[in-house]
């Protein structure tokens, strides 16, 4: 018990010296699985958004939702590609599984022709 408490205390201290100015609360309360808001770095997503010459400005919320949507997209396409791999009784996702998923799923139509350039 004492060791645990000491361990927690040490962790708290590390948190405190690091970013105590910005975050009054430690990260512990928001560790619920659904609470992870976004894993993709917003700066990279913003760079992609700014690459569009027609876009003037994008709000922070828009960038955040795009990041989250990209995550959902990755999950979706990975699962769809896995279905193809499963049919071939393989446990490793290959590039061709991805190509099959893109052809099979209407929603991925915008990706057709994207990968044939690099080959």
């Amino acid at each position, binding site marked *: 018990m004492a060791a645990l408490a000491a361990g927690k205390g040490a962790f708290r201290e590390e948190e405190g010296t690091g970013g105590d100015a910005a975050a*009054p609360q430690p990260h512990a309360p928001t560790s619920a699985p*659904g*609470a992870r*808001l*976004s*894993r*993709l*770095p917003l700066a*990279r*997503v913003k*760079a*992609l*958004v700014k*690459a*569009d010459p*027609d*876009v*003037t*400005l*994008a*709000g*922070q*919320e*828009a960038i*955040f*939702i*795009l990041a*989250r*949507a*990209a*995550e*959902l*997209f*990755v*999950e*979706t*396409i*990975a*699962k769809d*590609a*896995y279905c193809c*791999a499963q049919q071939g009784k393989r*446990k*490793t*996702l*290959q*590039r061709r*599984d*991805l190509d099959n998923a*893109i052809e099979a799923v*209407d*929603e*991925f139509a*915008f*990706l057709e022709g*994207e*990968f044939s350039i690099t080959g």
Partner: protein
Amino acid sequence: MAERPEDLNLPNAVITRIIKEALPDGVSISKEARSAISRAASVFVLYATSCANNFAMKGKRKTLNASDVLSAMEEMEFQRFVTPLKEALEAYRREQKGKKEASEQKKKDKDKKTDSEEQDKGRDEDNDEDEERLEEEEQNEEEEVDN
């Protein structure tokens, strides 16, 4: 820096983690497949941005907002994303609100400190003014007496 927009890839480590969590245990992914998914994600963001921008322009706005992106998802036939995205947006707004309140509270505490310091200075100034007025009244009385 980057030659084309598609070259702006999202970090491989994060992409890999998302893929692994989406798939059952024991399933792995080849390097080519992973980089293809990463590229696809970049293209997705670019396409979604373009769609969202159309909605913003329809609304005669120059700034993309969250509802533009949600409308773009429906346009792109990714309606199944809309509900989880709305939930994520709610959570994000709550977090932002919490951060804002925390920083505003800190600012208020800071202002209170500076205010109390100013009040101390102000009291000294008022005392000086009172003394000046007293002197003037005395002078006036003397004049009346003369008349």
